[in-house]
């Protein structure tokens, strides 16, 4: 059994409609029928055979995957072709973004977040001490690739998906320059965006809450 199959067997969560011995197969909380292992073992009458899927669904075409799989992760591996400058981004921002996010990227609370700003009092990742400190791209965001991914998938709010990849590069360049992460002369493409390091990328930590007595 490979590791994934072992995990699946452990997961034990599927119930068979039509079977009636539920009480015997429930765990201590009475809420989780432990049947997946039985499916996996092929011992459920009418279920699939040992280790077999149900055979439902259809193969996904490569073209469909390509059309939907537009995400860009932190490694920037899937960044598309195209390029844009800070100056081009500034023009686009004025035309398509400032209506909601403000001429200076100050945002419009609570619906439209601030994007731009490096006020001294909010430097050093001191946000826990004062809710009035404004989170911006420059003083909070951990990955520049997130900007590209989000603008491309979701902005502008009333016409998502309408920007070209080069326009998304330009807006990303403008917002990074306005947040003092890139110089005003910058041009962004896939390689240069992959190389951008955000000022506070190292401040994010794993969740260490585990329940129990301690308040974290």
């Amino acid at each position, binding site marked *: 059994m490979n*590791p*994934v199959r072992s995990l*699946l067997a452990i*997961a034990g*969560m*599927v*119930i068979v*409609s039509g079977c009636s011995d539920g009480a015997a197969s429930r765990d201590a*909380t*009475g*809420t*989780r*029928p432990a049947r*997946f292992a039985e499916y996996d073992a092929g011992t459920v009458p009418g279920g699939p055979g040992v280790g077999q899927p*149900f055979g*439902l*669904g*259809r*193969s*996904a075409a*490569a073209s469909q*995957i390509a059309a*939907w*799989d537009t*995400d860009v*992760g*932190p490694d920037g591996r899937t960044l598309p072709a195209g390029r844009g400058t800070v100056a081009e981004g500034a023009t686009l921002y004025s035309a398509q973004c400032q209506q909601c996010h403000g001429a200076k990227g100050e945002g419009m609370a*609570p*619906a439209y*977040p601030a994007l731009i700003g490096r006020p001294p009092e909010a430097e050093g*990742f001191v*946000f*826990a*001490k*004062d*809710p*009035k*400190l404004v*989170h911006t791209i420059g003083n909070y965001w*951990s*990955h520049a*690739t*997130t900007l590209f*991914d*989000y603008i491309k998938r*979701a902005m502008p709010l009333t016409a*998502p998906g309408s920007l070209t990849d080069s326009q998304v590069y330009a807006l990303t360049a403008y917002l990074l320059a306005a947040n003092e992460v890139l110089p005003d002369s910058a041009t962004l493409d896939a390689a240069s965006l992959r190389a951008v390091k955000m000022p506070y990328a190292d*401040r*994010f*930590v*794993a*969740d*260490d*809450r*585990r*329940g*129990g*007595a301690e*308040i*974290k």
Partner: protein
Amino acid sequence: MLSRRDWLTGSAGAIGGAVLAGVPGLADSQDAPAAPLTPPADPTKVAGAPTSDLGGRSPFETPHRAPTGEITGSSLTPLERLTGQITPADLHFERHHAGIPFIDPAAHALLIHGLVERPMQFSMEELKRFPQVTRTHFVECAGNGRNAYRAPKPEMTAQKVSGMLSNTEWTGVPLTTVLREAGVKPEASWFLAEGGDACMMTRSVPIEKAWDDALLVWAQNGEPLRPAQGYPLRLLLPGWEGNINVKWLRRIELGTAPWMTRWETSKYTDPLPNGTARRFSFELDAKSIITTPSHPDRLIEKGWRPISGLAWSGRGRITRVEVSTDGGTSWYEAELLAPATSKAAVRFQYMWQWNGGATRLLSRATDETGYVQPTRAALVAARGLGTDYHFNQIVGWDVATDGAVTFFGESA
């Protein structure tokens, strides 16, 4: 034609017949009447209303969500108007990031790809051919309680304080079952869930949650999901912050690292006093709120009454709820009105005899990990006043000698 007012004012019964069936608006309790209600003096002496195609609420019951009016906004469940443990589908809280999409279920498909043996897609009809499960779980927005944490005000209602909490009977299929069709490769450690809304909401999920208790759900409380809850398909990750329960789910990609989406980096992260911020802080810690009595109730008479509310934990079962009727000096164990189940809200009740004096009512929940709902002071010490999510401090209600009930939350 019979008007809405005719029926609401009681004259419909005298007309009788089948004309009411299908009258638009009558079944929709959400646009409840402003007109004065004048039922017949003796309903046993007047013919009643006929049957109808949809059952609406009594015109005397007009619960409403509280929408912010923005397509990126929220709309809060009126907790103080509800009893039992299940949130009616039309009162389930909303939080959207690009509005509610209008989706034809016949055209909707779920794509599963990435680190799988066989990239697959599933229509809604195909998903419904898998063995189904029905489970009750709460969904709570990670930002629920922020206003009361930062700036509590006496005029806050339970809806305002904690209305981004709802509890639902969900029906769907375990994610493990569907993933097996595609064959997850052993090296897969995270998956990306993407919605079909106008921001194509994306969140990264550790694969262990899929093996544990993740569900793909298409029904709430016995009927298809409401559009605001993800129609026709949503990811349900029991006990985890609302945002990651991706609505209008259309794509799952298996990978080896999180995608660092906008919602899991710039939002839904928790600044801490040591100059860091938690990310991927999925679980919702144990929490409770008294919903009766609550503002703007006014206690008219001294004597016995139930103190009642909801308790929930994203880490498992609620094992105990305690109520204080003296501002926290002494605590009494409340009764749970139904068996508590894992990652579901449970209704609690404590019978209280009001003597007419001024006092403060509080509740605190304990879950099966032994975690006890903290005071706000303890949370502020651990996370700071400026932390952004996961507010589960003890809250309550002040009762004045004139019976007025106002919100109490600790402040700085």
